[in-house]
């Protein structure tokens, strides 16, 4: 299996908004144009963005509306003409996502990235890609990539209620959809869906979603001896290993210094065994409430 690695060409640049549309209940798709030599990016990586105008010299004391950038997983990367086009899927949960929602096409967004670790791709395995809520974002990119490379996978996508499903396009085929309230697809959680996954699948499980779901998926995989990789979230300061703000309780390190992973550098994609799920839960893992 290919190990996770770090993309090594991170830049900050001004992206032009190509589209910004609602695709499901409280879920928006943002398409951004970047220079053609941006990246390369891989599934699992994220961008760290700010809608604020650049801090110009000479602007007296202007701190802008939000101080920090906000991280979003890449939900897709492609090329159009001589530009790189990236996609993110975002839920409106607070200050910056509220600002993002109001950005019209042609407006700009400052993008730092691509950053973080990637989902490993094991050409030999039928992988299970599991997304919960807005956690579907990086898995859409991964699934598209696997599809392009004709590698077998099953996409599992759980939401609370059917209105929250983002459209999956060609990826819908063979996908296992669940809604907790039974308003569509399977009634239940992604764990219920996993039970129905093809028998040959599962050697590798890739998941992204709320803390509780990730923990459950990790347990499910562990009990079956599958390798599980999860994409985790914490509050980010910088996204590029400058601040030490994105700590996640870790297991299996060798010594005091290793009690925490840095989600932006050691992640966002990490092996589920590396995480001390219980400690993290007690601290009240930062995953924001999925609703607005």
């Amino acid at each position, binding site marked *: 299996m290919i190990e996770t690695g770090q993309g090594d060409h*991170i830049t900050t640049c001004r992206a032009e908004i190509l589209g910004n549309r609602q695709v499901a209940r409280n879920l928006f798709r943002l398409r951004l144009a970047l220079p053609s030599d941006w990246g390369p990016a891989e599934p699992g990586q994220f961008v760290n963005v700010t809608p604020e105008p650049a801090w110009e*010299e000479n602007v007296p004391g202007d701190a802008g509306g939000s101080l920090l*950038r906000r991280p979003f997983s890449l939900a897709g990367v492609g090329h159009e003409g001589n530009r790189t086009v990236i996609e993110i899927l975002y839920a409106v949960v607070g200050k910056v996502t509220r600002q993002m929602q109001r950005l019209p096409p042609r407006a700009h967004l400052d993008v730092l990235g691509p950053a973080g670790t990637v989902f490993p791709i094991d050409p030999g395995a039928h992988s299970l890609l599991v997304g919960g809520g807005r956690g579907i974002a990086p898995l859409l990119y991964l699934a598209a990539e696997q599809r392009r490379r004709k590698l077998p996978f099953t996409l599992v996508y759980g939401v609370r209620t059917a209105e929250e499903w983002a459209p999956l396009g060609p990826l819908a085929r063979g996908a296992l959809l669940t809604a907790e309230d039974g308003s569509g697809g399977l009634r239940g959680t992604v764990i219920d869906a996993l039970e129905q996954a093809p028998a040959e699948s599962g050697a590798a499980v890739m998941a992204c979603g709320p803390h509780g779901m990730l923990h459950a998926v990790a347990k499910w995989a562990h009990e079956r001896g599958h390798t599980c990789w999860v994409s985790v979230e914490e509050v980010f300061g910088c996204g590029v290993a*400058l601040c030490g703000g994105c700590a996640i309780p870790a297991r299996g390190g060798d010594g005091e*210094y290793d*009690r925490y992973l840095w989600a932006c550098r050691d992640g966002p994609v990490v092996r589920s065994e590396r995480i001390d799920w219980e400690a993290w839960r007690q601290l009240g893992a930062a995953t924001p409430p999925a609703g607005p």
Partner: protein
Amino acid sequence: MSGHTAREVDLSVDLGSLELSNPVMSASGTFGYGDEDPELTQVRALGALVTKTVTLNPRAGNPPPRLCETPAGLLNSIGLQNVGIQTFAREILPRLQDLGPPVIVSVGGSTADDYARCAEILDRVECAALELNISCPNVASGLEFSRSPAEAAKVVRGVRRRTKRPIFAKLSPNVTDIVAVGRACVEEGADGLVAVNTFLGMAVDVEREQPVLPRVVGGLSGPAIRPLALCRVWELARCLPCPVIGVGGIVTARDALEFLLAGARAVQIGTANFREPARGAKVVAGLRTLLDEKGVNRLRDFVGRLRLPPTEVS
């Protein structure tokens, strides 16, 4: 704004025996150890590099969440996560020497002796100066050293005995009289003062009805604190003879000029790096332009030239 590039302005400054090609440094703890993605951070453009604080033993740091954005500010509770001085001196410090700028190592500790022992270790390796973090609000007893002149003096005294390198003491603003603490440091041989570390602050998660940070209080940084930091720097520069390095909320070259006018000999960029990893480099470039526009040829002539009102009316 003048059109031509203003390369001629001499930005060099000295901090006692330490000469810098320009007055802009990274602030401790906001730039990794200093070697994270040198291309992204443009570390080479800096006048000096200050490492994150290193302690005698490795430290895990505080549990998450460690950050909370506030209006124009950032509350942090990192807790000095670091590899410990031994690993740092052996594995990381050598790498930093290749980056270009002189390396100032920030040192923390729980006892005065911790600092002294770190100084001893650093004296055997290559580095430009020591910054003594006696003002971290995020570790047990972190603030104590900088909240009383006597405690601060004790730390500086111990370090002074073990190293010939320049020592800068980094002060806490969470005190009634920062000048008294600064003076105590200088009297024990500190070559300069860094002002300020973060302000004690707190945020509450109203939904969960609990503090946002597990340790309840954290340190506030960012533009929100700029007027407060500037005030402390001015007080120190006015009252004490040693170089003062200003830090707190600096984002633009214009902000840096406020500190330099108020008497800071150099400045550090902290939180602003998180939005723009190359902020420091941009401040350096901006200083050139602004000083050129003002007709200033040498930054040295500019430092501290704030004109005070003729009579301070009460």
